[in-house]
């Protein structure tokens, strides 16, 4: 297969792996950092509308999981000012740790992307809502923002262009639901982190009742590349057969030889990612199941996994979602009931308790799966589980209920015989334990 990509150029992970000091301004500058910003602000490469147009042309889609076209989202921003840009760095999806790499190793690219985005949106103030547990990334980002202020990339008069740009770092208190944009807005405002009813969308009424754009770290960082190379060039970085564009970070975890974050162009085959980048399955064990886009997307079996190209269309065609790119690889010997139990325990714990189906449903299906895993389930429970998950889906304010329902439904659909073995044998056929895909490091 042929790829149209700048040879050897990584746009987001454009630094040597494991190198020291990649997070400093100097290091970033040596890699061509802030050149796009300077070109835009000093040389007037783009007008704000022009940059917005480039983003639209680039075909960039939100990297946070939902994959909403970024340019379209930006164009919805209401006209009144002040408006705000919020960077969603509340990366709390199990299996996803890509934003962390940007925040830790390459924070200036986020800062530059945010300034460019503020320019394109004609806004002044950006917020970065960082997950509370990301203490170390926060420190790096904080330092980067300070450096940017000192270097004049942020402040009242940025690069002498007569424009003021500010970025504020806000630490979250640790709730999965604050990764949802309206929940994040509530949390940012100091309220309880619960999603808001939409409409009105944040682009109309957002933070502090002002128009707001909320974008993922990776999305905003990618804006640098678009400003640098132009939207059309960015749109060429893809698998020719696919429609998704640009590069994407994939955080691979689980039973692989080399777990980690990899940047590949859209449409990169999973098989190649597994075998070339990650060095194959751990100890050569056979693949059993794959969660391709973070814990909330449907699971697929090994056969389907090998057919997947890592882009939005191919994933959808194979019954799953690209999501946030949190690739969880599960090898033979993994108990899928246990896997589901772990996932549902998370969603049970993280449901905000606002909407009825999610509040009561996540707990309910978690308790059922827990019982099935313990070998005390019945066949009726399996049907109930599917029915409840189905009832939860699509009825809540945010998609947390869906995020809990999809894995439950797909686990049941794809690995039904394993659930039935739990029921019939009255115990976990895998001994109640399994090679834990979430806690096994590369050294295991």
């Amino acid at each position, binding site marked *: 297969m042929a790829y149209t990509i700048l040879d050897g150029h990584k746009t987001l992970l454009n630094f040597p792996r494991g190198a020291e000091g990649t997070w400093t301004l100097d290091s970033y500058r040596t890699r061509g950092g802030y050149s796009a910003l300077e070109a835009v602000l000093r040389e007037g490469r783009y007008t704000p509308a022009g940059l917005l147009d480039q983003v639209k042309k680039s075909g960039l889609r939100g990297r946070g999981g939902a994959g909403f076209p970024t340019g379209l989202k930006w164009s919805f921003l209401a006209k009144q000012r002040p408006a705000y840009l919020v960077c969603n760095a509340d990366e709390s999806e199990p299996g996803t740790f890509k934003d962390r790499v940007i925040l830790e190793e390459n924070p200036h690219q986020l800062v530059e992307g945010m300034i460019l985005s503020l320019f394109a949106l004609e806004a002044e103030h950006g917020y970065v809502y960082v997950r509370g547990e990301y203490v170390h990334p926060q420190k790096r980002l904080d330092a980067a923002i300070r450096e940017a202020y000192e270097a004049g990339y942020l402040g009242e008069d940025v690069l002498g262009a007569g424009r003021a740009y500010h970025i504020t770092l806000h630490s979250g208190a640790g709730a999965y639901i604050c990764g949802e944009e309206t929940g994040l807005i509530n949390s940012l405002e100091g309220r309880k982190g619960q999603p808001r009813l939409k409409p009105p969308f944040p682009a109309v009424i957002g933070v502090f009742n002002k128009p707001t754009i909320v974008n993922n770290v990776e999305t905003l960082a990618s804006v640098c590349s678009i400003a640098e190379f132009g939207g059309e060039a960015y749109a060429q970085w893809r698998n020719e057969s696919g429609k998704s564009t640009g590069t994407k970070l994939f955080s691979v975890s689980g039973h692989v030889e080399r777990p980690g974050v990899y940047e590949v162009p859209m449409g990169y085959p999973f098989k190649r990612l597994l075998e070339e980048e990650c060095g194959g399955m751990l100890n050569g064990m056979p693949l059993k199941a794959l969660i391709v886009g973070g814990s909330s997307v449907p699971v697929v079996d090994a056969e389907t996994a090998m057919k997947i190209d890592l882009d939005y269309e191919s994933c959808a065609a194979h019954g799953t979602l690209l999501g946030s790119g949190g690739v969880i690889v599960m090898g033979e010997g993994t108990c899928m009931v246990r896997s589901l139990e772990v996932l549902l325990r998370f969603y049970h714990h993280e449901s905000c308790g606002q909407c*009825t189906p999610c509040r009561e449903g*996540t707990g309910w299906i978690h308790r059922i799966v827990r019982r099935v895993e313990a070998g005390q389930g019945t066949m009726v429970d399996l049907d109930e589980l599917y029915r409840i998950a189905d009832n939860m889906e699509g009825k809540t304010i945010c998609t947390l209920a869906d995020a809990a329902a999809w894995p439950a439904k797909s686990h049941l659909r794809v690995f039904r015989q394993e659930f039935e073995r739990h029921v019939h044998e009255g115990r976990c056929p895998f001994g109640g334990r399994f090679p834990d895909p979430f806690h096994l490091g590369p050294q295991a």
Partner: protein
Amino acid sequence: MSEIKTVTLTIDGRQVTVPAGTSVLEASKVIGAEVPHFCYHPGLPVDGNCRMCIVEIDGARRPPVSCATSCADGMVVRTDTAAVKAIRASVMEFLLVNHPIDCPICDKAGECMLQDYYMQHDRKRSELRDEKVHKPRLVKFSDRIVFNGERCILCTRCVRFTENVTRTHELGIVNRGDRALVEVAGGGSLHNRYQDNVADICPVGALTKTDFRFKKRVWFLKHTDSICPGCSRGCNVVLDHDKNEVVRVMPRFRAEVNGHWMCDEGRDIHKRIGVDRLLAPRVKLPGREGGATPEEALEAVAEVLGEARKTPDRLAAIASSWGTNEEAFLFAKLFGETLRTPHMDVKSDSDEGYPEDDVLHTADHNPNRAGVVAQGVVPNDKKGGLGLAGILDACRRGDIQCLVVWGPGLSGHLPGGESELALVLSKVARVVYLGWKDDPVARLAHVALPTPAWAEKDGSYTNCDGIKSTSVRALDPPPGVRGEIEVLADLQARLKGRSYGRTFRELAAKTGAPLPPRRPAPALRQPSLYRHASGVARP
């Protein structure tokens, strides 16, 4: 006048035109397609968390909640498809999964939305095989409100009430997921003066009033539209009563008066109905001492007034600010027209109550001062009529020969209180008292006639904003006690005055009182447990 913008949409195949900005839920009410809901309350901001009011709208990506969706032109809404019904059933199932289903001991049973909707939309057994989530029960939010966490469906109506109506912010939701709980912020207690409303708006039995707790099952209650006499706001209320006893008072929606709410004190006023009542007439005229029948007492009053008529300047009448418009009308006609006294004024019957605030309370703790004045109970300036203070001064000087006092509380107008009252009244040859309380005046008067309390008579009241509300008789007065309308009309007839009518409905035409809608007579017992007990439209 700006034209109100309207939109036209289709709900269940029927065209509806509503003002722009109306929610689909409210628009559905117009055509009678009632969309079930828990968290939505017309008096509170929309929260959209119960997910019960989901409907189908053509073109929507996922079925939206109708409470939070504004009507738009050309919208096509379906509220009764199989899919919508399935969603309602599934939401009911989720709501009931961790609900304790303790309806037998729950006071809300009978008017519980969860019960009603279960019968309408779910009607199946629980599929739960695991332990339910347990939460604290019997949490005292204050000495008026008790909270049961297990029954709570976390609709946040109470939270939004304290946020948006009283703006006291005592309540909040703590914890996440199925462990979420309503708590009083900071571990204190509810301290606002409208806290009983949170129990009213609670769609389930999570918040109950200590006042009403275990007193009566709601399906035994009869409901009568009334007004609250606690202050000059004149909140429209429903008296829930059984066996000639008011059990609780609930607010009745009236947008321009009280909206959906009422204060806690208004709910307690009914407890004073039986306290200090004047139950039998008292006559202390020479030759008529001793127990008198109501008929004899009335005759004595007529005799006293007939005597006083010869010197109208020395007759004074003080009206009650708790009287209804119709009574005040007759009072004014009797004394102003038939007996021609210039000295008429209205007094305050009561000065007890909560101080004024910006929600509902007013400073005047009498329901109908404005109405009584509007009906003509004012000093006749042309003839040198005296006001209340003037009348009392004249009494003190001995210039008044006959004083008619209607309603209790006259001693509150004298700095010396009761002892001064005795002094003042001793200078008056004939004192007539008319009222439901056994007031100091009643003990000093030469003739005292008992009258019904406000809940025991029909009448209209005019509140501080000039809005008239009608109160319907809910209770039977004590035996032998006749209403003021009847008494005044009778006196008018005995004194050969003009007849203006003897019933509320006759007089309402003259005072412009809104006639109460004729409700069907309440069934002796509600035929079904599953009908909404209060009989009023559910908010």
